[in-house]
């Protein structure tokens, strides 16, 4: 995973609330056995019609969306299925951060593990972002701040260890493997329970 320090980009806005992971990547694409290439299927049923032609009214098909790395979405983004294919698809598409007032638990956890930054902001900041699609926003992970083009900066919460991993491009698995001795001790102490 590449370290993340600062993301500066125009935003794409999807104001719908409760955008679930079935919309981000429908189940029929989950029969893949790799992580690559899912970006072209991101939001498929909103992005393309039955013949596969782009729907011109969908935001990602509009020229202004090209190159945008920050997705601003309605409350409770990423709800539903635990499929990690959702952050894989968004990253492969080109997004590097998702901003909302609420981000679903499993999606947030999966995003952090792949370098897609989940940013939760207050209602006022969110309202401004919804009302100003395409605004250039800066998300600075070193200061935990999201800065609007107006100069207004807001802090966003992020779990300390996940932040450390993102800033340094560190993999959590390495840390867990280092706990091997403690895990073995735990297993020995709980032997009875293990076989109950």
């Amino acid at each position, binding site marked *: 995973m590449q370290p993340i320090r600062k993301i500066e980009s125009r935003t794409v806005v999807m104001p719908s609330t409760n955008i679930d992971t079935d919309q981000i990547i429908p189940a029929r694409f989950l029969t893949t056995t790799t992580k690559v290439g899912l970006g072209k299927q991101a939001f498929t049923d909103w992005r393309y019609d039955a013949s596969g032609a782009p729907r011109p009214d969908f935001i990602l098909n509009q020229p202004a969306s090209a190159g945008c790395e920050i997705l601003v979405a309605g409350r409770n983004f990423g709800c539903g299925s635990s499929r990690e294919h959702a952050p894989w698809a968004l990253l492969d598409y080109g997004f590097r951060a998702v901003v909302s007032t609420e981000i679903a638990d499993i999606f947030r956890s999966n995003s952090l593990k792949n370098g897609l930054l989940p940013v939760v902001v207050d209602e006022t900041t969110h309202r401004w972002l919804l009302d100003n699609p395409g605004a250039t926003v800066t998300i600075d992970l070193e200061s935990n701040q999201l800065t609007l083009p107006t100069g207004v900066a807001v802090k966003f919460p992020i779990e300390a260890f996940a932040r450390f991993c993102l800033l340094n491009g560190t993999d959590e698995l390495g840390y*867990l493997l280092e706990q091997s001795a403690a895990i073995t001790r735990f*297993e020995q102490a709980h032997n009875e329970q293990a076989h*109950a």
Partner: protein
Amino acid sequence: MTAKTLFEKVWEQHEVVPETSDTPAVLYIDLHLVHEVTSPQAFSLLRAQGLKVRRTDRTLATMDHSTPTDPDEVFGRVPIKVESAARQVKELDKNCREFGVELLGLGSDQRGIVHIIGPEQGATQPGKTIVCGDSHTATHGAFGALAFGIGTTEVGQVLATQCLLQRRPKTMAVEITGTLADGVTAKDLILAVIGEIGVSGGTGYVIEYRGSAIEALSLDERMTICNMSIEAGARAGMIAPDETTFAYLKGRRMAPQGADWDRAVERWRQLKTDPGARFDHVVHIDANNLEPMITYGTNPGMVVPIGGTVPVRPGDAVHAKSLAYMGLTAGERLLGKPIQVVFVGSCTNGRLSDLQLAARVMKGHKVARGVRVLIVPGSQHIKREAEALGLAKIFTDAGAEWRESGCSMCIGMNGDLVDKGQYSVSTSNRNFEGRQGTGARTLLVSPAAAAAAAITGRVTDPRDFLHPLQAVAHS
């Protein structure tokens, strides 16, 4: 001693390393369930890093999501039609052999939906931590386990270390008093709960369902409740184990036996919230006045009593978009709406008692003309039981399709699909856009309401067909 909640007891028993401000807890996982869709990339990671599965004895794999339910495909008489699904099935087979993981694979008579076979095998037990790369893992919380869905990166972490890095979630009590009326099921109850707290009301929480209405439920019904915790945003839902739980587990293949059983039950009896323990949030629900429920929109919180009307929400663009997808109008009555497909099955409602309930409604009736009815048992074991009890014959005599076990029409990735624009009355858990097929319109209900719709071809109050029967949901 500080009074503790059920969740706190299970959590604290599994902390290998407690959390600090800088690092999450290292949480030990007792049981890791694996399926074909969310595991291939995790096994690839292990292979790339030269790692082994740390505890093959705590890992159990099956195939359910992308597997066909057509017997000819399941038993290899014809190739699996969805080619990528066939590859995925082969891949899990290969991975389990290479890494030494027990697999209840496509030909196994013990195969089934991952959240149905865990309990069925007795692998799901009170006080365990249970994970699976699937959001409906919360189902296992019905036994007093702490069970939650994880992503594929975490699947790899658990395979390699039997542990996860977790921050301690908040706790919510959903207190349910009263008694469910005849024809009102656990499915109706959980839909009402989701309607009450909303689809993100449980975000950041582990829910404990408690109260007299919960204690009166069978394990099948408790699983239906915990299963849909994620539909309220909660990763896990739990119910304290009791005599009903112990009776369910006794004698199952992977449950403790003999003296081990007695010791286990003694330990399990401690797994309840102490008097005076504090929850971060408490919600009260009265079960007495609940009606059969039905969803009308594109998330499970968009739910009304079956006799109700589609809510009117002027100026709510998201509501309007959802109704446009569903082809429904604000203010419209749902009863009597013509439907084209009925699905009975899934990890929410694919257990034997669900099939019994559907059969009692359908017995002696025919499926309405032009309606496709798919009835899919949650496991091969349930399939055999349903056949032995004559339920399968009731379904096929009525004109329904009776299939091999699997996730089937709950998730449009195995060939069982609802066509664009069709209304599907379904016992599954998600009415998201496209969930049952591109353009499919899903109405979530109980098995009784699904069976009633199969007979009439319309949205129907199941109580119209349940008059002579008492408390059928508890049979």
